[in-house]
């Protein structure tokens, strides 16, 4: 009884392996929450995510881990200035605009 109570009041296990497991959860809200929590951990969890990717057979989870790895190791570019301005104003963050002769996916 006491053990059951402790399990109920114990904080959820938010370790990386558990969050990776939740990337394959049936509930889309749980999956999205896991993505946000993993993103919040920053670059430090990249090695763990890379290891998780190696052992992962679920294609959807693999895709989500790959997406997370990209987001954690690459600049999260927006490509629409209007959207970026709105986000900068909302989040009260400065805006960095890089402008050149071509689109993001057209340059090395």
């Amino acid at each position, binding site marked *: 009884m006491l053990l059951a109570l402790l399990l109920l009041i114990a904080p959820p296990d938010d370790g990386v392996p558990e969050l990776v497991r939740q990337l394959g959860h049936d509930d889309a809200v749980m999956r999205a929450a896991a993505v946000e929590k993993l993103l919040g951990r920053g670059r430090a969890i990249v090695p763990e995510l890379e290891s998780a990717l190696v052992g992962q057979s679920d294609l959807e989870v693999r895709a989500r881990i790959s997406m997370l790895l990209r987001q954690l190791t690459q600049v999260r570019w927006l490509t629409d200035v209007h959207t970026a301005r709105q986000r900068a104003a909302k989040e009260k963050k400065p805006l960095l605009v890089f402008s050149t002769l071509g*689109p993001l996916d057209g340059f090395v």
Partner: protein
Amino acid sequence: MRTVTFADPKVVDLLNERYVVVWNNHSQDRTAKGPQPVYTREEMAAYPEGGGGTNLYTMITSPDGVVLNVLTGFWSAGTLLDELEFCRGLTPENRATSQAARRTALRQEAAKLQTDFPEEARKRPKESATVRRMAALQLLAGCHEQNILATVQAIDEYLVSISERSRARMFV
């Protein structure tokens, strides 16, 4: 810049955490699709800072979109991080004074290199990292000179002016 400066882990983390970042194509009629040249790591490392001129603009604005700092050309991760540090605390009100101080500091740094390494300073840029650094500092100071002279603008207006200048250059 995308695969060198903007791929540097420190730059990536700083931009993702503290900035909203947007890529703008100021030449919509050039899509640059198709095969791209492939550069070796050595070729990319040898690209001079400040090179590329007005083909490349890196602009920092306040959260409400007022342009505070503009760099033209290619800049290394280290230089970009220094510039982002400079931009902290930059406002439309203190912009002119801060830009002038930054320009002076960069020129003093270049002059000090010349004084400290007179033998190096006589070499050609491709023979000396010191000379390349001096040139980069002067070019960077030039960016700040332009920033002092420029009137404070909203980013949308600034991007229109870049696009127009780019188009004008194509037909010269």
